[in-house]
């Protein structure tokens, strides 16, 4: 049985029944060319599945103790098995639980050898019960109050996947019987009774909560058309429903193909040292890509960081060099302490300004200008000057005038020269002259 699933969504049954050598060769060639991935199932009769409850509430710690807890559950040493954990989830007591799938290495190797004999080398070897359950969930949603039993009737085996809608469609258990279509085909009544008896025994062992729910039986597998006698023997009341899944013969192959295409590797037991070289190479390539991406990102960050630091240092150095050069030029000092450039220059320039002041003063002789202006103003205002004194910023003008008001325009003239003027006048004496004093301070 071989089904091809493509990312485009196309599903093609390549063959349903024994394949000839040419078909097998074509498939092998396509897989070898890397254009397809081969996924196969490990029968439930050769595998083991259990929910493992850990007492731990931290996921990372729970993951570490899962193998030890699985070891206790397994009927054979863990070292002789390959196993996979999936669906790690918080349990009712906030602890973590996971679905463990395991199989003996010898069974896996034997299964691979069976494929090898056909010239096939599946990259994925998945617990068939898990893919059956998931595909049934995908194709027919499960009602919350229903117990579902997916039954795969294979040629020489039966696989049962039991789950409940109460937990959102959670798988409860997976079982395998070494009793299948080959044994049931002759409508042999003892085989049917044996099958029904074994199945009922398994269902009775289910947790107490699942007992009261309506039961939905979903048939698939090459022996699905043989379900009639089984349904008759299983039917117990009106809360039991039977249904065949679409295209039941190819259901398992379809489930495997679609799971592989979706990257769903839950229950994948070809792992560890038996991992398919293509997957190992794919993983290694993933590591390489991650490593190169990290290296690239890290390198880019380093380059940017170092580049920025170098640019910053150079910019600082360039500015500092120019600052120092200008400070040395302006201050005339060769040794200037770092950070004191401005203060040093300001101190030097202040001293320099004092030394240059006489040159500026010489080009703008204020006292001579004021003297000439005062003499001219006195003439204009008809004022006789008796004494005139100028020292520093102060000016004293004493004089006389025949009119009380004549000294006002003189005071006004002095103000225009930039002096703050204080005017004092005396009443006219015997000579009928008004004597005045103008005291000025340069603003």
């Amino acid at each position: 049985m071989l089904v091809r699933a493509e990312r485009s969504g196309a599903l093609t049954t390549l063959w349903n029944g024994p394949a000839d050598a040419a078909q097998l060769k074509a498939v092998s060639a396509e897989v070898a060319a890397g254009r397809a991935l081969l996924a196969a199932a490990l029968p439930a009769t050769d595998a083991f599945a259990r929910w493992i409850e850990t007492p731990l509430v931290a996921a990372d710690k729970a993951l570490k103790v899962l193998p030890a807890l699985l070891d206790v559950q397994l009927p054979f040493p863990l070292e002789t098995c390959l196993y996979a954990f999936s669906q790690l989830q918080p349990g009712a007591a906030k602890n973590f639980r996971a679905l463990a799938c395991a199989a003996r290495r010898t069974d896996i190797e034997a299964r691979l050898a069976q494929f090898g004999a056909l010239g096939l080398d599946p990259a994925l070897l998945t617990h068939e019960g898990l893919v059956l359950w998931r595909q049934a969930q995908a194709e027919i949603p499960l009602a919350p109050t229903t117990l579902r039993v997916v039954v795969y009737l294979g040629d020489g085996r039966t696989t049962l996947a039991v789950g409940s809608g109460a937990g959102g469609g959670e798988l409860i258990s997976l079982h395998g019987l070494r009793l299948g279509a080959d044994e049931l085909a002759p409508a042999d009544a003892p085989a049917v009774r044996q099958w029904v008896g074994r199945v009922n025994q398994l269902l009775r062992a289910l947790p107490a909560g699942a007992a009261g729910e309506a039961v939905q039986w979903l048939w698939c597998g090459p022996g699905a058309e043989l379900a009639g006698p089984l349904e008759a023997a299983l039917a117990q009341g009106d809360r039991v429903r039977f249904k065949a899944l679409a295209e039941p013969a190819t259901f398992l192959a379809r489930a495997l193909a679609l799971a592989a295409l979706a990257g769903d590797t839950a229950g994948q037991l070809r792992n560890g040292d038996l991992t398919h070289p293509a997957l190992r190479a794919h993983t290694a390539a993933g590591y390489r890509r991650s490593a190169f991406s990290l290296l690239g990102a890290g390198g880019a960050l380093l380059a940017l960081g170092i580049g920025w630091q170098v640019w910053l240092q150079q910019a600082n150095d360039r500015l500092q060099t120019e600052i120092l050069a200008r400070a040395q030029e302006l201050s005339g000092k060769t040794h200037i302490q770092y950070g004191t450039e401005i203060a040093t220059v300001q101190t030097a320039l202040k001293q320099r300004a004092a030394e240059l002041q006489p040159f500026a003063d010489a080009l703008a002789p204020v006292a001579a200008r004021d003297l000439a202006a005062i003499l001219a103003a006195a003439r204009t205002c008809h004022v006789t000057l008796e004494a005139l004194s100028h020292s520093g910023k102060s000016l004293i003008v004493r004089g006389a005038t025949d009119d009380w008001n004549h000294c006002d325009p003189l005071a006004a003239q002095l103000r225009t020269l930039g002096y703050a003027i204080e005017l004092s006048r005396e009443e006219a004496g015997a000579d009928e002259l008004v004597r005045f004093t103008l005291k000025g301070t340069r603003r």
Partner: protein
Amino acid sequence: MSTPTTAQVRLGLALAVAAAGGALALYTLGSLTDDLHKLDRKTADLATLRRLAADQRGSQQALAPFEALTIKQPPSLTELAAKSLPGIAPSVRQRESLSAANGWQARRVEVKFDASAAALGNFLTAAEAARPPWRLVEFDLVAGVPAPDVVRVTLLLEALEKK
């Protein structure tokens, strides 16, 4: 402990480089504000120095006419007085000297004499026209002493000189 595989070593190395890059990026981002402030401060310092240099160049321009003089010592005031104040013998007294830029000195001289206002004007004009010029710094004039048309003059003059 098992020997790490090549892929693990490669990934570890890449992680180390990424961690170093990340750490450097964090450090750079963390110090970015300070670094930019530091650059801004230096740029502002440089602008201040450029402004001070421009001011300095302006002040230096006052020096140029003096440096251009062939004779860098002012004429004697006694000689100037002899030319501009005929018949008057002023009293000339050296006062303080102040050091100025580029080896120049500002020398101050006190001059006293009695003269008419017009003669005073002539003297001051001659003093200012001298090269280097004599600049009037302070003055004290009293009119009518010792005669009605005479002014008793006390002047403080300053000239720049370079020996």
